[in-house]
Each structure stands twice: as structure tokens, then as C-alpha cells.
């Protein structure tokens, strides 16, 4: 296997131990940043690298850091380790096996925006990872990498972990902040954006775990090195979480811009039992379905192409593969159930709409639906569209509308036999 940079434990055993990580040049990037780069220079380097957020939206990371006003203090950095998107399991692997690289990235980010406190928000099920992180943070404090006056400078930083209570919505950055503040996890109204009024109303950067894990690489090896991977607009490496009807599901670290075919066939070993591939979900449950035509399989996976070609954002790059045995109405039913369960309930269309879609989809799955119900499902989904307070509600209809559009037959198969008088 080729060299891994993000899933570095696959190349270097025991990189989850501080001594091993440091022996491999770990924390040199942090040292370099704190002792020889101005915060603005760190941000500049990240901007130059073109790194884009790996949490789903693909927003340029350096630009995000640059938004924080230097007139309002304190600043905070929050690592988003909520990883709750069905089919996404990359952050877990990083946190479990390459934790120091992530922590170093978080620390560099904190330095770049001059935050003296940074938080790691983990989904509740990651409690063991949180415990392990706590121990590692203690090690870093013992080693003088965290705490007061780091490397003899006047920069001080402390890290804290915080566990969520098992809500998908708490991965959404403003709901995450509410939850981190001890409140009910519901998204906030925007504006103001976290960059100006985030945690405790202070300027805050929120980044995904994988995004931050890229940071030491960029500061250590330079933006040009980073740009040697991936495409011009979507540079760098990306961890693709591959699941579904494939022979070898798992995380794959590949340059952005590699194609579905490479991932699914070259790396994932193709479809289980050599079935025909039917559809691809590129962004977990929040995906717009892509019909897996030969042409689609040749599409590069980056932040532009899938969106332009299929209206399907890459999101967190959790590629779920569906083969001919899967009925897409069932798939829609499953995603609806997920979103109905995870809707925070704050806004009407998502709270009521996901519940209603679930009633209709259940009817369809039980063979009790009529053709009118399918129309109704489509109608309800369209009625949700564009009206929600946050993206979760908008995600909830992606698979529904795209499956209805691309795989209408799958629905018709399930409708109640109609007696035409």
C-alpha cells in the first residue's frame, strides 16, 4: 500500500504513542508555527494550500480562520468530532489511531486564531475515544506542548473534550455550540456566524477532525506539497468512507479527484457477488442519489464535479454503494426514518415534514400505499425544500426526491394493487 498521510498509522505503527509520533517529526509543525510564524502567516499558508473543510461543506479553511475579528476576544477553536452522518467513519479512525496528528492540527489552528481554549466535541458514543484523548492531552501538558507559555513564548493553550448525547444535529456547527454550552442542541439563527459570535458569543472556528488532521502536513511540508495531490480547486488527500454493497468497505485515503470507479472497484474490490451497481450515495444519508452509469463511475470525486454533473454534493465523502438488489423506495424509507429520528424539531417544515414523509413511506413499504401516496410523498418533500432553518431539513429530502426521479419504478413496485373497477 502506498504512503498514508492522514491515516498515518497505516504507514507508521504505534503512531498513536506520543514518543513514536514525536520521533516521526510530530509537533514540529506546531513548534514551527508557535516559535517562528506569526498567526497571520499560518492562516496565509493554509489559504495557499487551498484546504477545504472535510466536514461536508468544503468551505476553504484558511478563509474561515481569517474571518475572526481581532477586535473581539477571546477566540475559540472547536473540533467537530460528532461524526454522525450514516456511512461516515473516517474521523473515528483518525481519533483512534492517529490522534496526535489531529491534536497537533487543532493546536496549530488555535495558535493561528490566537485561541487559548479549544474544545473537542465528540458524539456521545465516542466516550472511549474521549477518555483516550483526555489522557493524551494530559501527556501533552506534561510534555509542555500544552499549558502556559508554550515553547517559552507567551502563547498558552488548553484543550478540553466534551461529549454529546447522541444527536446527529449536534454535528451542525451552531447546534454543536449550543450543546457545548450545555443547552438543547438546536441550530442557531445565522447571521451572526460563529466566526463573529460563536461559543459563548465569542468568535469561534469550527473544523472537522479530518480538516484539522491536514493542518500539520501543510505547515510542516508546505502548501505546495499539499497541492501536489488532488485537483486545482479541490487539492489534497481525502479519506473516503466506503460502505454498502462492496467487497471491501472501509476508509480509503486517496487524492481528491479520483473517480468512483477507482474507489469502488480498484480499492473497494467491486460489488458483492458481482451484482450490477445501481446507485451511489456520495454524502451518506444526506446524498442526492447518483445513478451508477458507466459515465457516472468515471466522474472524479471532488467538491465541484459531482455537484455540477448530478446536483450531488460530495459532502463528507461517505460513499455508499447500492446494487441492483436494493429497492430505492426502501432506501428512501430508511433515510426518511433517519431524518425523522434526528430532526431537532426547531423548525416546522423539517419537524412536521419528516414525520409526515415517514408515515407515507411506511405506508409504501407496507404495501398499503396508492399511487396518490407517491405523489404526496414527492409533494411533501418539495414542500420541505428551501424552507428549513438548517441544512438537516434540506438533507432529509435529497434521497427522497432523487430516488423518486431516478427510480420511480422501485416505488411503483410497492404500491397496493389497485382494482380498477
Amino acid at each position, binding site marked *: 500500500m502506498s504512503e498514508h498521510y492522514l491515516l498515518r498509522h497505516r504507514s507508521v505503527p504505534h503512531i498513536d504513542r506520543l514518543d513514536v509520533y514525536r520521533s516521526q517529526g510530530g509537533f514540529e509543525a506546531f513548534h514551527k508555527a508557535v516559535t517562528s510564524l506569526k498567526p497571520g502567516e499560518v492562516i496565509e499558508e493554509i489559504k495557499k494550500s487551498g484546504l477545504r473543510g472535510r466536514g461536508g461543506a468544503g468551505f476553504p479553511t484558511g478563509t474561515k480562520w481569517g474571518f475572526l475579528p481581532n477586535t473581539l476576544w477571546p477566540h475559540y477553536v472547536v473540533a467537530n468530532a460528532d461524526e454522525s452522518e450514516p456511512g461516515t467513519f473516517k474521523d473515528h479512525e483518525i481519533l483512534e489511531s492517529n490522534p496526535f496528528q489531529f491534536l497537533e492540527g487543532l493546536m496549530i489552528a488555535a495558535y493561528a486564531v490566537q485561541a487559548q481554549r479549544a474544545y473537542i466535541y465528540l458524539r456521545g458514543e465516542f466516550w472511549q475515544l474521549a477518555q483516550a484523548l483526555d489522557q493524551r492531552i494530559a501527556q501533552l501538558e506534561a510534555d509542555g506542548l500544552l499549558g502556559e507559555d508554550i515553547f517559552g513564548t507567551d502563547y498558552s493553550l488548553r484543550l478540553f473534550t466534551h461529549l454529546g448525547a447522541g444527536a446527529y444535529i449536534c454535528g451542525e456547527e451552531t447546534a454543536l455550540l449550543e450543546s457545548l454550552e450545555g443547552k438543547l442542541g438546536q441550530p442557531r*439563527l445565522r447571521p451572526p456566524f460563529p466566526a463573529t459570535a460563536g461559543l459563548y458569543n465569542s468568535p469561534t472556528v469550527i473544523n472537522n477532525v479530518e480538516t484539522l488532521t491536514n493542518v500539520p502536513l501543510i505547515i510542516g511540508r508546505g502548501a505546495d506539497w499539499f497541492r501536489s495531490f488532488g485537483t486545482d480547486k479541490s487539492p489534497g488527500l481525502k479519506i473516503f468512507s466506503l460502505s454498502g454493497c462492496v467487497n471491501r468497505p472501509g476508509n480509503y485515503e486517496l487524492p481528491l479527484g479520483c473517480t468512483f470507479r477507482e474507489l469502488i472497484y480498484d480499492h473497494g474490490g467491486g460489488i458483492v457477488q458481482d451484482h450490477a451497481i445501481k446507485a451511489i450515495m456520495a454524502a451518506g444519508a444526506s446524498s442526492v442519489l447518483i445513478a451508477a452509469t458507466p459515465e457516472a463511475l468515471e466522474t472524479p470525486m471532488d467538491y465541484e464535479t459531482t455537484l455540477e454533473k448530478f446536483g450531488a454534493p460530495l459532502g463528507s465523502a461517505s460513499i455508499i454503494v447500492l446494487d441492483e438488489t436494493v429497492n430505492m423506495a426502501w432506501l428512501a424509507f430508511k433515510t426518511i426514518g433517519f431524518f425523522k*429520528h434526528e430532526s431537532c424539531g426547531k423548525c*416546522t*417544515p423539517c419537524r412536521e415534514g419528516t414525520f409526515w414523509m415517514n408515515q407515507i413511506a411506511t405506508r409504501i413499504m407496507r404495501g398499503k400505499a396508492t399511487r396518490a401516496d407517491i405523489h404526496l410523498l414527492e409533494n411533501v418533500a418539495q414542500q420541505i425544500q428551501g424552507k428549513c432553518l438548517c441544512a438537516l431539513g434540506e438533507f432529509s429530502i435529497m434521497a427522497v426526491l432523487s430516488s423518486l426521479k431516478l427510480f420511480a419504478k422501485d416505488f411503483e413496485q410497492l404500491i397496493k394493487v389497485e382494482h380498477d373497477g
Partner: protein
Amino acid sequence: MTDKLVHLTIDNIPVSVPPDTLVVDAAKQAGINIPVFCYHPKLHPVGMCRMCLVEIGRPLLDRASGEFVRDADGAPKLQFSPKLETACTTPVTEGMVVITNSQKVADARREVLEFILTSHPLDCPICDKGGECPLQNLTMEHGPGQSRFLFDEKMHLDKHVPLGELIYLDRERCIQCGRCVRFQNEVADDPVIAFSQRGRALEIITQSTPGFDSIFSGNTTDICPVGALTTADFRFAARPWELKAAASICQHCAVGCNIVFNVRREALQGGRMVIKRVMPRQNEQVNEIWICDKGRFAYHYVESPQRLTQPMIRKDGALIEAEWDEALDLVAKKLTAYGASLVTLAGGRLSNEDLFNLYSLTHTQGGQAVLYSYMAGGDLTAQVGIPPQTDLGKLGAGCVILVIACDLHEEAPLWWLRIKAAAQRGASLIVLNPRTTRLDRYARHVIRYEYGAELAALSAFQPQSRGDLPEPVRSAVKTFQEAENVIILYGSEGLGLQESKALAHACAGLLIKTYHIGRSNNGLVAAWHNANLQGAWDMGFSPINNLAETLSKAGVTYVVATDPAGDDPQLAEALQHSGFLVVQDILMTETVKMADVFLPAQAYMERGGSYTSGERRLQRFYPAVPPPGNTLPDFAITARISQRLGRTAEEQSPARILLQIAATNPAYAEMDYQLLAQVHEQQPLMGRHDLYYGGTTYENRQGLGAHLSTAASRVEPLNIPDAPPPPVFPVQEGLLTVVPTTRLYDRGSLLIHSNLLHQRLAHPTLTMHPKTAEAYQLSRGQTAVMLLEKTPYRVEIDLDEDLPHGIALLPRSVGIPLNAPQAVKLRPES
């Protein structure tokens, strides 16, 4: 307001509004209604319900020049966002184009309503909100005609959840708009209810013990846009359309909240008109659109079975029902016989008109007009009080509000709300009190003094005060001295009548010396313990120190609307000694039981009149229900007595009495009932068509009242009496000094009849610091016996680490006649 206006168009109507105005409010000002559920003009927007979606276009800006990009005709090019936007969260910007009447917007409204209705029980026929329900109204206007959601698939939830004993939640009806939660957080600062769970399970819960522990809880039922929140008082009691509304003024404290009595004819009560509920009536200068729960729920005394409706005369030791003529003739005969030895003791709930007639009778008789009150200073507030054009709702930066010896949250709840809000707008709040109160957290400066040391604490603010003051006093004084406007508000925390008099005097003196008089937003305010104590002072009544002695020497005692014998055994004894006792009241009381003649009066909601609030706003109340039996208004009873003594007195029309008042008291010179009945449009709009916007608070159509002038604002010479001798704080070896405090839910004669509030009523509890308790060998929960003028009273001991040492607090009106600091003997109950 020199801020430039922002110009935009809404449905092609040009609108100019101040910056930061929200689109929804800008539209309202242009007469365009954008439907809302979660938005409320008095709360921060949250954008949750998505009902207010509109199309918004903004002019394209040229990046380089910052100018609008214009098309060939010179019109700015617009950029519409692909999604509809929430009008309730979007502030206006220059050149904005808002469209609310397109098909797209109509579709969105229909769709959002359809969503809301999918989980709504649609039980309007049995819903208390039916008939005044925003969801009903907006559905009629914008909703779908038919349900596509299968009725059998509706979620069923608990429909009778008591959040507390006052407010019930119907979980099926809740549309999760969060107005109630935000009201409690933002306005009331009682974050005792919250959302819990998520998705369709999202529900309102209470987080306090007792449940929904807030004195403002009833307001949530007014702003709840559906029938999810109802009061224990009104739920299932009547349908809104059966109700008549009578404008009135709350009777329970000095704020003078504008209210409405909703009444209907009640079959179960033999077709009598009865009060079904109390609702707030908008007066942005008094109570805005809110009232406290005491105001809302404490009206039940009017239905008490102890109402007395027939005159009575003592014959052979017993009170026997009599005719009016007989009773009044007897009173007149006694008055003729005993001439000047008349003592009239009046309560602070009487109207100005009642008090005016009472005073005239007493004065012409050469008697003494005594006010039953433990607070003084009404003569001073009449001279240096806050004059017209003062509005607590507008105070902000540059203004100091100094609150001394007052637990405002308990003494005048709505003032607490408004002064808190003023502080949040930037007014500098200075709080001087011996212990922590709910106002402290909004104060810029908090100064603690020992009970009894209020004068010393205030003296630091004198202009000539020394420069060597300790913090936090020094900064507070600096703030005070730099203020453009100063309002001083005093209460009754730990004070008796003498202390109150001295404090009011010191406050007035300070304001005069620092020239904070006679101008709007400057002056003295008293947090009186009754609705019309200010009016009583204005009509010529004042309290006296030696009440018991005076009563015991009176030839004729005329006690009106108060129960001294019930309050205090000492006063009961004094009344035994006094000569002929005439008692005029509405309910059976201990004093009534002692009467030689009893005269049945009407409750204030049974007749008209006016009250003068603590801010000295003169406000009018109207009859709401017909008077029972053979009762008469107080002013009429007094007038009939006067007439029998050969004097003219107005007995028919309170309006004419106010004209007489106007002729004699310069502050009332311009006042008449027409003036008090005047209204002008108030923002936010309330009423029928605006139910969806502001809630069910009544629009004010019956009068906003009028602010009275002060001697200072009329630029008359002031007549400030000499400073009274500073009272001595009672401390005595072996005795514990007990100080009175005021509680909203006391056991006063009106409150005690409202069963609903019983759980919340104050108890005879002595609260002290644990160290103090230790010194007296007392512990929490223990019962002790307290000796007051030889009468033993049982009290329960409670501890509070926050209190100063060496004293104990006792609430007023809990059955123990302690209205001034007093050193008492205390022993554990054997």
C-alpha cells in the same frame, strides 16, 4: 432619533423605517400583515416556525464603487435569493424589495400551515383559544382547505399537563413556537420552562419546583399562538366570543396595570354576570402588554360568600340587617353629636372619588382623615414626583434609576420588568438594599447597608459628600453625579412609617439639591403597597404614627375599606375603646364584626372611578359586573352621610367628583373623564386583527389615562416639611430585631380569597442568617413563638446565608402585625 431612515419597498409600497427594523415590522408599519407564529414584537426573533417566508430582492452593489448597479432605465438591478427568507429575522436594508403577495409566498404560507396542522388535534370546538386563536385565523386566511394528512395517523399526546398549578399545557396543541420559553427567558428572567426532546417529540417542560415558578407565568397564555397554554382559572370556563370586556385598572399594587375584566352571564350562578378572567390591556407607558399573576388571578374575592350586601346596625349586641335610611340616619345622628372627634380611617384601594368625598366629610366635620398605610411621602411625590412625559419604557443611557429599600420584584412586579428592561437598554441602575433582591443582577452598582441605615447609605449621594468614599459607593456616586436624569424609587423593605417618612424626605431632598425635579424622567416614585395610596395622599389623607391611640380616643370612627382589627389586636383593642364605630366594606372582616353600623360598599369592578398610580398617572376604571344586593359605591355612601349633615355632596357621578377634585387640586386641574378615556395608536398593534402578532392582550380603546403634573413641574414653590427626626433602629439585649418585608403573594384580605394562589402564599416565617439562628438556638424548620406587644405568634424559622447578621425578616400581611422594625422576644415552641 437622528438615525437615518432606511428606504425599501414592500409590495411596491415605499416604506422608510429606522435601521435594524425587521422586515416583518416594516411591513406592519406599511399596513401589510406578514403572518407569524414564533415572532413576537416584544421578543427576540428566532425564525423557527417559517410562517413569515417572503421574497426578498436586494440591489446589486458594484464591488469597486459601492454604488448600486443600475439597468438601462437607471433602476437598481435586483438580486433575489433563490430561497424565500424569513421576514421576522431579516433586517431591512437600503433599496430592498420585499414581495409578500406573490403566488410563491402564498404557496409557502399554505405549505407551512399544512405542516403545522398535520400534528394539530384540530379540537377548536373545545379549545379555550378558539375564537381568538392565531392558528385558526391564519389558517382561514392562508391555509389549505383540506387535510392530506391521515387523521388516524396523528400523534396523540397528553392534553392536560400542569406545568404548575396555574398554567396547563396541551401537548397536542403546542406548535413549538417557543414564544413562552423566550418570554420567560427574555422578559421575565425566570427561565423555568424549556424545550425538551427533539423532532416531533419536542415539548415544553417546566424545570422548577414548584412547577412554572414565575409571577409572570400567565402572560405566556396570552402570547401562545394556540390553545396549548391555558390558565387553571379560565380553561374550559367560557368561550371567548361569549365574553364582554370591561376596562379596568389592577388593584393590587402601585403600578396600575391596565386590565380587562372578561365577564359573561353565568347560568350556573342564576344568570348573574360574573368575571371569567382578567386580561392585560395594552398601555405602553404603564404595563405594555403584560400583567403579573397576582393581577390576573386575585380577583376572586369579589365572588366570596363573605360578601356583605345589606346595611347592618348593632342592636342588643348583635349586628342586625337594616335599611339604608335607618343606618345612615344613625350615622348622621352620631356625627352631629360627636362633631370634631371623627376619625376617618381609609384604605388605599379606595378610588379618588371615594376618598375625595370621605375627605370632604371628615374635613368639614373637623375630623381627622387618616390613611391606613405604613408608607409615607405622598406629599413629596406630589411635589417632586416624576412629571408628564416620563416613560419607564423609554429610559436608557444617560438616566440613573436609584432604587432604595425596595424588593421591587415583590412590591411592584411590572416596574421590576420595566426597570430591568431600562437597565438592559443602558440606563444606569443603582440598587441600595440591605439584602440581595432580583433587581441586583441588572444593577450597575449594588450598595448594601445594614437594616436601619438607609439614610446613611443615601447620604453618600449628597452633592457635598466627601471624596473618600469606599467602593462600590464611590463609583455609584460618580454615576449618579454624571447622570442627566435621575429617578429615585423607594419601597418599604425593612421600613416602618417613621422610617419611610424619613427616607422619602431624604430622597426628595437629594433630588431637589441635585436639580432632578420638575423635568420629565426625573423625580421621586414610591412603590406603594396599595393601588391608590398616591391618590389618597392627593385627596388629603395621610398615615399617622399613633394610630391606636387616636382610634381609642375617637368619638366616631369611620373605617372604610380596611380591616385594622383583623390585622392587629392592638388596633382591635383601640377600636373597642373608640366611640361609635362605622364600618364600610365589601366583605365580612374582624372590624366589621365590631361595628356599630355597617355600610355595604361595592367592589371596584362593580362601579366606576379613578386611581392614581405610583407614577402619578391618573387612570379610569369602568364597571364590569352589576353590584350585588343593596350595596352602594363608597363615594355615594359618604355623600349620603354628608347630605344628611346638610352639605351638598355628589352621590351619582364619579365623573362630577373628578371635576370637583380638578377644581381643588392643581395637579388634577386639567383632568376629566373624557381626557382619561383618550387613546392613541400604540406599537405594537394589539387587538382582533393583530392577535397573531401581539397575542390576546386587549387593545386599549377605553383610555390611556393621564400623567399628573407635580408642583415642581408646574414651577410652584415647594412646600417641603422639616426633616423628621431620624428614627432609631430598635436593638435590645436579648431580643431579636425583626424587620418587615413585602411579599407579592402575602395573605392580604383580597388575595386570601383566590384559592388558585394558595400554594404560593407567604407564610409567617422568620428568615435569618444561620449564625443569627445559632445565637438564638434556633434551627431551620423549627417553630418558635414571637411576642409582639404581649401577643404570642407562631413563626417558622428559615435560614438564608445571604442575609445580614443579627436580624430576621418577616413578611407583612401574613397574620402578624409587624409593619416596622421591632425588637422582639423569641422562644422555641414548647
